[in-house]
């Protein structure tokens, strides 16, 4: 799969950034079997922001994890940026995550002893990419309004600034798809709206697809489309 990942750079942009087809995920077996996702089908266009809404335990995180190559489905097919990762090995999934997707986690989780700039550069360090890393990191920080905070460690940043750095980190590898796990849950409404506004702006400006998990229905208008998930099942026409 890594060869296909390498070829991605030259390949034309696909219509869909993510295609999850009839995906099922089952945890445990026998009496302890839990169906987290059941016949889930989701198509995300290459420049589309999809908000994923559902109650706790509905399978949102499982869906996001499968789309991001953190989990493999029990059955079904997962194609991200034209690459089928359904049966990719753990090593191939690691390479896939380095190059194809970006993550923004609920609890931010920046590396605490690295500066804002270094938290972005860590993505390229992990992938062994050299060259214009610093230039791209600086451009991202500027675009996110964080140039003046580039040399500050996370401990000296506000919650909103930390979340913006996390967004920068997710965009550092120029991904096909960015996955947001409740990016506003730790922020107050005003800050949450600013972050969603930023996500909306950055994704559309870059033509990058995104799936945003959120509990907050007030944030869904920043997405192009909202998909509901209940008991592992998605809305029809998703």
């Amino acid at each position, binding site marked *: 799969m890594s060869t296909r990942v390498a070829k991605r750079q030259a390949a034309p942009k696909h219509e869909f950034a993510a295609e999850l087809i009839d995906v099922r995920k089952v945890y445990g077996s026998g009496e302890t079997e839990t169906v987290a996702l059941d016949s889930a089908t989701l198509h995300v266009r290459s420049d589309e922001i999809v908000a994923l809404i559902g109650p706790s335990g509905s399978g949102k995180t499982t869906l996001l*994890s499968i789309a991001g190559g953190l989990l493999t489905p029990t059955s079904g097919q997962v194609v991200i940026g034209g690459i089928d990762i359904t049966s990719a090995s753990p090593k191939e999934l690691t390479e896939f995550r380095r190059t194809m997707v970006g993550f923004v986690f609920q609890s931010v*989780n920046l590396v605490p002893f690295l500066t804002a700039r270094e938290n972005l550069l860590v993505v390229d360090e992990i992938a062994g990419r050299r060259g214009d890393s610093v230039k791209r990191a600086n451009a991202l920080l500027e675009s996110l309004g964080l140039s003046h905070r580039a040399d500050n460690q996370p401990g000296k940043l506000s919650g909103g600034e930390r979340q913006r750095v996390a967004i920068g980190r997710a965009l550092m590898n120029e991904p096909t798809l960015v*996955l947001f796990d409740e990016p506003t849950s730790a922020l107050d409404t005003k800050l949450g709206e600013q972050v969603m506004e930023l996500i909306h702006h950055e994704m559309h400006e870059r033509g990058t697809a995104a799936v945003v998990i959120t509990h907050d229905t007030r944030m869904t208008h920043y997405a192009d489309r909202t998909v509901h998930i209940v008991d592992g099942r998605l809305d029809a026409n998703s």
Partner: protein
Amino acid sequence: MRIALRELRRRPGRFGVATAALAVLALLLLFLGGLLDGLTAGSTGAVRAQERDGFVLSTSARDSFFRSRVTPEVRARVEAVPGVSQVSGFGLTFGSAKIDGTDTDVGVAGYETGSSVLPSPPAPGEAYADERLEQAGVKVGGSVQLGPATPIKIVGFVKDTRYLQNSLLWVNLDTWRSTTRQIRPESTVGDEIVQALTFDVARGSNITNVTAAIDAATGGATSTLSSDDAVNATPGVASQNSVFTLIIVTTLLVAALVVSLFFAFLTLERVPIYGVLKAIGSSSRQLFLGVLVQSMVVSIIAFAIGLAVVAPLAISAPSGLPFALSANRIFITIGGLGSAAILGGLVSLRRVIKIDPAAAIGGGT
């Protein structure tokens, strides 16, 4: 790896406790190693200083120079063995001398062939003295008198030539025999008789084969030792080595335990951030290399602190303290500590591999 180094640089306090504990262990390792080397050097200098390939003792001596006697007939047979070259006689007697008003244990070593350490044997009645005797007050041109023996004139000093912690006077074989007769009448040997023979192995011959050939040629009357075996046969050296080695290995295991506990704790604390790093594409190998780099750097810094404390002791050690810090010992200690760091770091490997990147994102539902 760069992340790991940045953490060391920016949060040195986090590694302070482990560094301090390892520095104490490094200091202990260097001190114990220095003591072992000092004791060994003080016990075996006389054997090493001759720089010969092997030593021939009588079988009944059970590898002790003091009990050994080698006759001219045996010497002739040894000289005739193919592969043996430059056979010389050697003899050793311990006594006591009053130096600067203090009774001091001094040995008299008779020899025939010089080396890079020992000049050719001096004239009758003269000796080269071990440098430790210079520290005790002996001077070139002065003399040392052992008991009732004729005083021996000192004509120079030699380094690292002691035997069983006694400083020696290096004399020719006739002076050794006459001095022995005067201070140890019961150990007197006849003319031409020596306690041991020293020899070199001719080019193209092998020491193992030559030692076996010598013992065969003397009909089992001799016990021939290579130079290394002669060093190890020095009374007390083997047991001293095994005791110190045991303590040093135990200390290294404690160092490995300190590293393993410390980094196991750090890894446990880092599980969430490692999960995130794995989620964004870091491999277990990259994360584990970071742990190893940190454990190695902590160990190297600890070693440097230990060396900085021990080095002045090596330079200014009082003459009574058998302490010698060699480059070899420094390399052995840093190698041992490095191995302990790797071994300790390995304990975290399983935990790093087990970290699930999926845990970084929500609760898994």
